[in-house]
């Protein structure tokens, strides 16, 4: 049936997939090595490095801070993004192309430049509110994802249903809650999930705006990689990879969102 996917092609695909997962599997193997340095293949077996990481207050603190930051950023992005998506798809807005261009441009301008530009602006304004700066910086990047995802679901929603409900006498708030919301909910959910991930994983914005008391996970990981060489780094990496796999499962199975939207 599928002659287009021949056996040689399947073999090539298999090899490429192996290369793709290799950097995610090798740290896992190295994290159980009973040596004070990183070595492949691992020697012996120990879980002490995991114990060390989990007991480390810095690691825990960064993790919790990143969760908090991502949650706030997602909330702000939804509050700004959902109405914007509704306005762009349901109403005539003069200059719509310009608005769309502005909204999507944070995805084109390099993040490292957006970050440094914000740092310059904040120091010009004399701001020292690090938490607020981080929330603003991350929201600039997350907002486009939310607006794109929610707009798509507004476009797909069937307007005849709204008209029908309104004509049949449903009050506007009922139309919004019982007709529009169920149709756009998947888009809002997807936007929220992507916003959370983008914020949680951000490095190039945080590197400019964070300080010692507000230190997101990616920055923490980077400093650990720079300064230590024992397998505890591999253990942290493995924990992060496990966390990501859990996210994949939750996103695909529980939320039913296709990951493919992340890369398009």
């Amino acid at each position, binding site marked *: 049936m599928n002659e287009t996917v021949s056996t040689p092609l399947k073999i090539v695909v298999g090899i490429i*997939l192996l290369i793709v997962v290799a950097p995610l599997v090798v740290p896992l193997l190295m994290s159980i090595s009973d040596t004070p340095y990183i070595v492949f*293949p691992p020697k012996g077996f120990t879980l002490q490095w995991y114990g060390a990481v989990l007991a480390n207050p810095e690691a825990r603190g960064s993790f919790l801070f990143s969760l908090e930051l991502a949650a706030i950023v997602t909330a702000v992005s939804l509050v*700004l993004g959902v109405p914007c998506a509704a306005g762009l798809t349901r109403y005539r*807005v003069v200059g719509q192309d310009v608005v769309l261009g*502005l909204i999507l441009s944070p995805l084109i301008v390099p993040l*490292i430049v957006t970050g440094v530009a914000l740092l310059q602006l904040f120091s010009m304004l004399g701001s020292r509110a690090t938490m607020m700066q981080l929330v603003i910086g991350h929201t600039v990047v997350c907002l486009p994802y939310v607006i794109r995802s929610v707009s798509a679901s507004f476009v797909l929603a069937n307007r005849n249903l709204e008209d029908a409900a309104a004509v049949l006498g449903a009050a*506007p708030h009922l139309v919004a809650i019982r007709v529009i919301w169920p149709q756009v909910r998947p888009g809002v959910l997807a936007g929220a999930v992507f916003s959370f991930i983008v914020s949680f994983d951000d490095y190039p914005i945080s590197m400019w705006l964070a300080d010692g008391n507000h230190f997101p996970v990616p920055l923490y990981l*980077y400093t650990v990689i720079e300064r230590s060489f024992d397998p505890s780094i591999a253990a942290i990496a493995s924990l992060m990879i496990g966390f990501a796999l859990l996210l994949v499962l939750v996103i695909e199975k529980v939320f039913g969102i296709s990951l493919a939207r992340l890369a398009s």
Partner: protein
Amino acid sequence: MSSGDSVRASMLSPSRRDEVSGRVTEAASHTAERAWTIFSGTRFTGYWLVAPAVLFLAIWFLWPVLTMIHLSVSARSVDGVMVEGFTLDNYIRLFSSDLYVRILLRTIRIALLTSVIAALFAYPLAIAIARGGPALARLVTITILAPLLVNVVVRSYGWQTILNKTGALAWLLKLSGVTNPPVLLYTEWAVLIACVHVYLPFMVMPLASAIGRIDRAVEEAARVAGAPQLSVMLRVIFPLSLPGLAVGVSLVFSLSAAAYVTPQILGGNFSPLLGTLIEQQILTLNDWPFGAAISTLLIAMVLAANLVFLKVVNRRFARWTGDIR
């Protein structure tokens, strides 16, 4: 059950219908009209809805980026002191120093090579997604996309564990009889390998959707007319996949030209890219105007790449396929 079904079901349930029809007979035209006014809104509703997000991005994105571009031509740093006034000094310095030009060329080289290699890896994967059975397509899609959820620091570290002196690659090479395996860590090769890995999904997905859109009948026609598999690939699938390739290349080029974490972790101090240069100029040397000039150059590179790859390729594409569609 899709959300549309649940809406329909709730609208048609007997109690709901009675409630609605009761109210319709009472004040049909009035309610419907009010609902219509609020939902279709006044002339300004759209603006009110869009305004908060637009204002937010205007203040916290557009303003800082424009300020930064402006700074690059309105000040220069002389012995650590900012001297104001229009100047092209920062750009002249950027293009006249051997060191900076080398970093610029390295950045372009890595971004281009990453795009090309990513495209080579992406084609088989995209064909498997677009033309393989559902199980194969799903396996490939998940395996390609799952790494996107793993932090880029961790992915770069993963390559460090493979490419370093006691790493997995050295072990594998020794096993297969290479006596003196090369150490790739802290070379441009390491940066290139990791960049391809990190940005591969952004090439695979647009390619897969472009190949998925190709009419199978066109392929069939070529095959029936006697074209061997390779010709079908090169003369049917490849040209028709160009719009997807253009999207992929512009994404991968832009992302890898601006990469910071990956070159930092895998290239060490030996192969910095423009991103590292910005960081050094601003955080270490405190030379804001020069940092602003490099940032502006980076924006210009990314915009140029988008323009070239998307606009030019799409125009060509329209000409090539004009007689098919």
